[in-house]
């Protein structure tokens, strides 16, 4: 008998007649953001801005027309001269760049190269207002996970209609077969006396652009 059979056998034996009980799960927790917390759509977006800023992320609101200029200005402000972007990043986003060398991740750059770059620009899949979270799923304009992991600076574009209120709403929208990365601010550690220090791995600096149209 192999271990698989042994373990499954032990589980069945352990549960005895209780095995198969369908425990009812009460789902009366909040699925959507409360009226009190964010009555309108605009409030949801504002809540996202507030919560993500609390996570030490710099947030800017722009219109679609202003995005390219905004990105260029942010990169300039962060002194990011060599950046990378997923191959399907909308071309227009980087149209305003000057003096910045932007490469597409195609063919995929190896880790050593990524480690020499100043930053990465991506979109996202979903953003969560209540927790100040951005979720990447490797889909449109996001690229593979290594892109947003190794360079020290990540600029992420979030469209206002990608922002949902709560974690349940986000889970419902996301595809679990894709590798997901849920980012709530830059990495941090509190291993020494519980004092928060910037985390060691992953972009230390996160800039978010919220595009409203």
């Amino acid at each position, binding site marked *: 008998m192999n271990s698989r059979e042994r373990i499954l056998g032990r589980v069945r034996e352990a549960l005895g007649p209780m095995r198969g009980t369908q425990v009812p799960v009460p789902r009366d927790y909040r699925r959507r953001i409360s009226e009190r917390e964010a009555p309108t759509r605009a409030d949801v977006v504002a809540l996202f801005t507030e919560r993500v800023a609390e996570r030490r992320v710099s947030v800017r609101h722009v219109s679609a027309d202003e995005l390219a200029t905004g990105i260029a200005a942010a990169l300039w402000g962060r002194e990011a001269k060599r950046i990378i972007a997923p191959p399907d990043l909308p071309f227009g986003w980087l149209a305003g760049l000057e003096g910045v060398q932007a490469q597409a991740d195609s063919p995929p750059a190896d880790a050593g190269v990524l480690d020499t770059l100043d930053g990465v620009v991506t979109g996202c899949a979903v953003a969560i207002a209540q927790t100040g979270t951005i979720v990447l799923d490797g889909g449109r304009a996001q690229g593979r996970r290594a892109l947003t992991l190794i360079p020290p600076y990540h600029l992420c574009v979030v469209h206002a209609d990608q922002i949902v209120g709560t974690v349940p709403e986000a889970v419902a929208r996301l595809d679990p077969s894709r590798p997901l990365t849920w980012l709530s601010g830059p990495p941090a550690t509190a*291993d020494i006396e519980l004092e928060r*220090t910037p985390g*060691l*791995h992953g972009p230390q600096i996160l800039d978010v652009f919220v595009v409203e149209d």
Partner: protein
Amino acid sequence: MTPSFERSSAGTTPSSQGPGAAAGPARDRAPKFSAAARTALADTRQRANLAAATAALRARRAAATAEADDWERLREAGRAIKDLTLLNLDAYLEELEGAVTAAGGTVHWAADAAEAGRIITRLVRDTGETEVLKVRSAVAQEIGLDEALRRAGIVPRDTGLAELIVGLEPGDRPSHMLYPAMHRNRAQVRELFARELPGAPADLPDDPEILAETARARLRERMLPAKVAICGANFLVAETGTAVLVESEGNGRMCLTLPDTLITVAGLEKTVPTWADLEVFLQLLPRAAAGERMTAATSTWTGVTPGDGPSAFHLVLVDNGRTSALADEAGRAALRCIRCSACLDVCPVYERTGGHPYGPVHPGPIGAVLTPLTRGVESAADASLPYASTLCGACADVCPVKIDIPDLLVRLRGRVVESRRRRPVPTPELAMMRTLAWTLGDRRRYEVALRRGTRWARLLSRGGRIRRLPGLLGRWTDARDVPAPPAQSFRAWWESRPGRPGGRR
């Protein structure tokens, strides 16, 4: 219904599951909790570190859970989802295996710690690598993974700051589930780094940010070229075959993204039924564990994704006594645990003793339950764990999945007593408790004892006080005075009341 003071006939005894790193003769010789606690209590630096750390965590957690106005409903859902999972665990494990396999991963089953070590060692060997990255994982600690790898000539490289700290001091062990180096303050970390970290400057300051940055370079240089990594998982979704890692530091992301081969090791009970169920746990865990709405980085992955991350994914499912706990109708509730450590941070005992007296694997209140549940109560050390509590109940209040830890502790105490009853020679405590029960079991015997007790008390006292109680009870008077013994018991007074209303029945 099986009376709970008899061990359930289902399930196996831990010894039949083979030796694990934490089992066997070493554990049989391990000190009882009270003895280990005495030593820990005298470590004044650790006491100060723990008091400050747990106070800070309590405050953060309280704020984060108070902010969620549906916290109680989330807890109830979390409890129910976990109970559903446990009562259908075989079906969900099979579903999980199918989904992981369909997504390009391979599932391995480890009946005990030794087998888990062998499987993982073989998987690493198969890649030809002699170094592996590791991400904080309680189960990896539990199965003694580091030792198993080293015996096979493979070097495990911890990627977390806390693991680095703990690893620099030989013989040191993690003292907390989420903050394994909690027992060290900044000065101690500075000392360790200056001494043991190659390249660390002699005048290294004890500022946490600088210390972390010093470690960063050393940790990062290991990660970029690595080919194999081993991590744990907070949740495994049966429906989709998805693994979930909740973290703040980012080393998890590094380990599950950069290497070619990823090995995830997790206990059977990490399973949750559906993807939608994560909507509950991704709210419960960050708030209960870290007092945050969401931790800085949470990653989920399913099997293998071509072009993004590892090309080989292995999931090692570990039993190692969990099915013993599962066999216990009441005790299986402990398997709901999502390793948030909220119970540790509110426990007044843990706050003063730290994690080490609880043994090498699970610290704190949940540890005092899980260790005897999975390993039995034969060793003195394991039998002492259910008593390492005043049953104050603070843990049950904060547990995000509503494990009634005090109730489980009392049941385990029952199991300890029953196992001692079977011994040929009764312990002094057993004799005393039997006598006490016999005396209390009959009014007349009780009243005689009361009268005798009053006489003895007056004999023992000097100047209206009892300086020292005899025998075992002397532990009381080691540290506390005992009040002046009363001249008569309550019922003697009641009897003597003139024309007492009500009176005897």
